[in-house]
């Protein structure tokens, strides 16, 4: 288990946290919904091959994610049902916050990063567990790929 405050958030996630902090409480859910709508459609081969991705079991909704590494740059692809907008929003935030980083930078993201986004008041601990599970699985994939 990591020290939650030891490492700073990468710039993308720090920007998300700052945006939520600057948004009045009553508008934060709308902002979260905007993130949900920004989740990118899956590219091939994942669009037709869900089995090439990893299911995030900690999430109560079917959430699948994969971390691709090309030329030392990580790309995150993820999908969740339309009827699970909160899950889509977390996936979208991780996609925006982690894509473009190097594997080392992704691995340096603190495990508690989802809890530092200022969303814990809006959503339940169970919902946050899905988000931390998503990050952990992405990091595990990146670790496995960089060791191999």
């Amino acid at each position: 288990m990591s020290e939650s405050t030891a490492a700073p958030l990468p710039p993308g996630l720090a920007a998300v946290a700052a945006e939520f902090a600057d948004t009045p409480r009553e508008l934060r859910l709308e902002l979260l919904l905007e993130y949900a709508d920004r989740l990118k459609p899956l590219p091939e081969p994942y669009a037709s091959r869900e089995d090439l991705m990893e299911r995030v079991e900690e999430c109560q909704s079917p959430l699948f994610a994969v971390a691709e590494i090309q030329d030392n740059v990580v790309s995150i692809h993820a999908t969740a049902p339309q009827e699970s907008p909160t899950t889509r929003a977390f996936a979208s935030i991780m996609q925006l916050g982690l894509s473009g980083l190097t594997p080392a930078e992704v691995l340096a993201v603190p495990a508690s990063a989802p809890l530092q986004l200022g969303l814990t008041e809006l959503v339940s601990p169970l919902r946050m567990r899905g988000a931390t599970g998503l990050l952990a699985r992405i990091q595990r994939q990146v670790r496995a790929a960089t060791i191999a």
Partner: protein
Amino acid sequence: MSKVPFDPTPKFQEYATPGALVSTEWLAAHLNTPGLVVVESDEDTLLYETGHIPGSVKVDWHTDLNDPVSRDYVGPEGFAALMSRKGISRDTTVVFYGDKSNWWAAYALWVFRLFGHEDVRLLDGGRQKWEAEGREMTKEVPTRAATTYPVSPRNDRELRAYREQVLEHVNAKGCMVDVRSPQEFSGELTHMPDYPQEGTLRGGHIPGAKSVPWKRAANDDGTFKGVADLRAIYEGEKGLAADDDVIAYCRIGERSSHTWFVLTYLLGFKNVRNYDGSWSEWGNAVRLPIAVGAE
């Protein structure tokens, strides 16, 4: 009693409390009925914002119904304030609906009953059926005039079981229904190295509980099964009877609210309590008895 008429759908008349359900057709025709408020309650807290039944208000199980600090529900003042904000009066007919086959809708309904709110009904089939039928949805949030809702005591005694009471129930060999999936019931673990750990330290079930996954009470479209099917499951197969003292539980009490609703309103069981601490409390507690395996 309520001035809002009951839904005369024939299927509902077979249930112990026919007025506890409304159909999508009935609701669509009664949306603007004075004295009726539609409440959406979902697992996914953003779903209401993506679109909801016109005129409905949102009640979130976590941010509205739970105490922000202690693991408990809001108190009488908090509930009265919530009702006031949502424009609900003590005599309002409240129709609940939500995602996931109405788990959270049933959960919210159960919490309303803890405070003695009288006229509560569930939309048969929930959000899933309303959407599947292509019925109107809107993103417009209604502005309802604030009401004066009386501060009403929360009567946990009849409808809610605490851990200590469940333990007494175990020792007295009382009836219990575990509504989780068979894998959760048996205590199988699915963790792998390096994966985040589940939130409970032990798997399995409360000794003596019978496994009846909540889903057995529902059809694929999210509606409830007919009374004959329900009786065959809970009474025929599991041997429960309407005057038994029954405790239902799941992981945090939402799926078991669904079963609590079935036993109480559809089958007419008189003494059903929901153990909302459920497995997330029992499976973490020290020295409580646990059984593993399919039986």
